[in-house]
């Protein structure tokens, strides 16, 4: 197994912190400004595909934490790109121009957590949730009303 540094050389300078869940699961934290550039660089530097977008609500820290889990074939490693956005202004740029396959993932996150992916024209509510469900069910403060 190559060291973490070797694996991350092409994207150096675009992330703020790297931690490891296990050998081939890296959490790469970055900020909103550099986030899109980082994803673009990962797509350009490695053979990869986007496996999932996982958004989690943390009302105690007033943030949404969004993980872009990208599988990198070159190192057989999961790069989990993590970005945090404020809960009261849940917006971040779309990545469907980089990974077109991310479209349904973004649609799902928008529908269930209300996070807006700027530049994605296909976001719509009730993509998954039934018409009679109001609000964003995966937010922790959702009470079913």
């Amino acid at each position, binding site marked *: 197994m190559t060291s973490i540094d070797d694996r991350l050389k092409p994207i150096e300078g675009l992330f703020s912190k790297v931690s490891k*869940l*296990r050998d*081939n*699961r890296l*959490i790469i934290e970055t900020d909103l400004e550099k986030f899109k550039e980082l994803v673009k660089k990962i797509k350009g530097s490695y*053979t*990869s*595909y*986007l*496996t*999932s977008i*996982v958004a*989690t609500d943390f009302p105690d820290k007033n943030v949404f934490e969004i*993980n872009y*889990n990208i*599988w990198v*074939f070159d190192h*057989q490693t*999961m790069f*989990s790109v993590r970005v945090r956005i404020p809960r009261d202004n849940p917006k971040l740029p779309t990545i469907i121009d980089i*990974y*077109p*396959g*991310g*479209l*349904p*993932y973004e649609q*799902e996150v928008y529908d*269930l957590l209300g996070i807006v992916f700027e530049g994605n024209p296909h976001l719509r509510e*009730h*993509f*998954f*949730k*039934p018409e*009679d*469900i*109001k609000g964003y*069910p*995966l937010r922790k403060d959702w*009470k*079913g*009303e």
Partner: protein
Amino acid sequence: MNKSTYVEIPVGPQHPALHEPLLLRVKVDGEAVVDVQVITGYNHRGIEKLGERNTWIQNAYLYGRVCGICNTVHAQAYVQCVEEIGGIQAPPRANYLRTLVMELERIHSHMLITAVMAELTGFDTLFMLLMRDRERIMWSKEIVTGNRVLADYIIPGGVKWDVNKDKLSKILKVLDFIEERMKYYKKVIMEDSIINKRWRGIGIIRKDEALEYCLVGPTVRGSGVKTDIRKDDPYAAYGELDFELITYDEGDVWSRMMVRVDEIFESINMIRQIIKKLPDGPIAGKALPRVIKPGEAISRVEAPRGELVYHIISKGGQRPYRVKVRTPSFSNILNGVIAYRNSLLADVPVILGSFDPCIACMERLIVYDVRKNVEKVVPIRKLIRKRVMR
């Protein structure tokens, strides 16, 4: 062609060719498909939200129910995460038994979709024969797990039941039978003129697109991409087994189906190896503590339909903080729309079928009672109580 001359044909949500509710809005120009829009939202069950309310152990049973056909892989993916966060490990014998059940499941799942595809193609005899033979694999699964479909076999720390020599020899006999039958069915699929006409050159996905659109499993291997989680990121006992990674380069419906047919033979070989190598020892290790420390884990397994990802976040306590399930069908059905380009209306069900679509897998999230127009969360405890009171 003027836009107004297109006709929109709804395929579904209730449609004989689709076994679960999904709407394909197909725009056609005569017989030629111009555009397909996938409309979802008919089958949402709220399993991710429900998982946040259940205890760690309850969830091992809940997540097995995301999908009936591939329930053991869902349980495996969930349990892998929990074991990683909780710091427990399954003993080697349990890992082999888990692999055995998952491979039995892959065989019956691949046989099922091959049968359904035969039916969609109008080849009902092949459907009947495949379904008849598939039942033997279901029996084998019952021999090991005690259940024909929903196994509830994989638990954190190990598996539920052990096997003995008698049981294993019964399974080997079934495998010999299935291998012979599958050789014949493979010949049929390769040589039958109707199947060749309906499956070859249809619904083509190029290799570069397959990755770009994040497709997974036999769908992406049918486009020549060499990826399989069992090889790339081995789990359970897969690292110790010898098997081939099947790919076909054509990228059409036929090649996606051939990947599945060939994988059945690989699975049969794997099960024979498992039975030969099955280590002695306990089938379950240390039990999962009721309260788990804070942590996070991402697990991936190769479900019959492709890569299945679980991302679980624990903040400590008796319940998970967040459980994210990304099923293979989610990617394949929604991103697979690229395959409908340049096809004819009659090919639409065949192309959808070639993704092995599982709607129950794809839509998992919200569950709520709307009787009397009142929307409210119904926690599982309340449901249990209601049942008891009745």
